[in-house]
């Protein structure tokens, strides 16, 4: 599936659109991490929680459950929440 990468993570992927596969959110993120080592831990903490200023969307739904099933052909959108300072 297509994965949209936010600017803060472009240093890992080199581009804002990448391909990754997997049956669940967790699988897709694992695949991303194999392709771009280290990227997962910047988004998901060691307790398997999405970090506070990262948001994951799929088909208009905000994802919090990493076991959420996905299907081929969709787009996983990773965004950095509006925050700063």
């Amino acid at each position, binding site marked *: 599936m297509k994965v949209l990468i936010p600017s803060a993570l472009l240093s890992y992927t080199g581009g804002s659109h990448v391909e990754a596969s997997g049956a669940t959110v967790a699988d897709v993120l694992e695949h991303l991490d194999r392709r771009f080592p*280290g990227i997962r831990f*910047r988004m998901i903490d060691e307790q*398997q929680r999405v970090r506070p200023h990262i948001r994951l969307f799929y088909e208009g739904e905000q994802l919090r459950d990493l076991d959420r099933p996905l299907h081929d052909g969709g787009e996983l959108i990773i965004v950095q929440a509006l925050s700063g300072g």
Partner: protein
Amino acid sequence: MMTTTTAARILLLVATRKGAWLYYGDTARRSWRADGPHFLGHIITHMVLDPRDGRTLLAAAKTGHLGPTIFRSTDLGRTWNEATKPPAFGPAAGTQARAVDHTFWLTPGPADEADVWYAGTSPQGLFRSEDGGVTWVPTSCINDDPQYRQWMGTVQDGTPDGPKLHSIIVDPRDSKHMYFAMSGGGMHESLDGGGTFAPLVEGMEVVEGFDPAVITFHDPHCVRLCPSNPDRLYQQNHCGIYRLDRPSKRWVRIGKNMPKAVGDIGFPMAVHPRDADTAWVFPMDGTSVWPRTSPGGEPAVYGTRDAGNTWQRLDAGLPGSQAWWTVKRQAMTADRLDPVGLYFGTTSGEMWMSRDEGRQWESVARHLPEIYAVETAEIA
């Protein structure tokens, strides 16, 4: 006092809220060439050069959005690689589940343990690397121990930037003898290489009205071991300045000898590389709501030459008024040249240095982001 004749040059490692900079000094420590920013926009909490090989540079980083990591360079920052396994707590359930918000402190291991590093995190955790910072392993006897977890408290019990484990010190004579400190959570010592730790807080005061027997209430801000006498430690605490002479286990509040109008509250502590009676602090306003500024807007380093019995104000060259910045706990340090160079970075993004042990100060850099940490290294 002798003037140094060495050709050694000082490299300043400056970690800030918006990136990192390296400043290359000339042999006289009079001009400085800036190399940076590295990691522009990243929050860099500490950057340290490995004194054992003179080339491995570790930087603790995160951004406002992304989780924490460690970056490594083996060519003085020309290229960087990320740790493959940054410091992270083990899996846990419910309220016991913690995630590293940022790595706060980096300490290279002893000379006889190449590639060993230690890291302290926020919330409080102690981590060890045996491969030069590529992978990090949690120290379970601290991070998961019920007693230590109680002493650490929760994130809400911590300082505004999060509770921290810091001041990781390895005795240069015995790598099994270690210390670390926690804000909050006290000072601790290990005699078995980090297998077990025990509190070392006798004599340390806590905020009025609290019980000093409760380890949680102790808030050491910065602890330094004297290289010339590893049995002596100095500590800047939330409640005063202290000295400890081992084998005694009782800290002595030498900050009582500071001028009353200035007080003995602050964050950093720096020690002389060859004279264990000499140390420096940077007092701040710890009254009322804790402004954490220079007292009265008049910044000054205070130095002692007699182990804390007397203190001298060292402010020549610093602003005389209306300077409302302060210096964080990792942001003041000394080099090893003769005379010793002192360096500090301010919350307002200025780097200051003295090449005569604090008698005269001058600006090295201005207009940087808020400075979190300053370290020095000698390069050829």
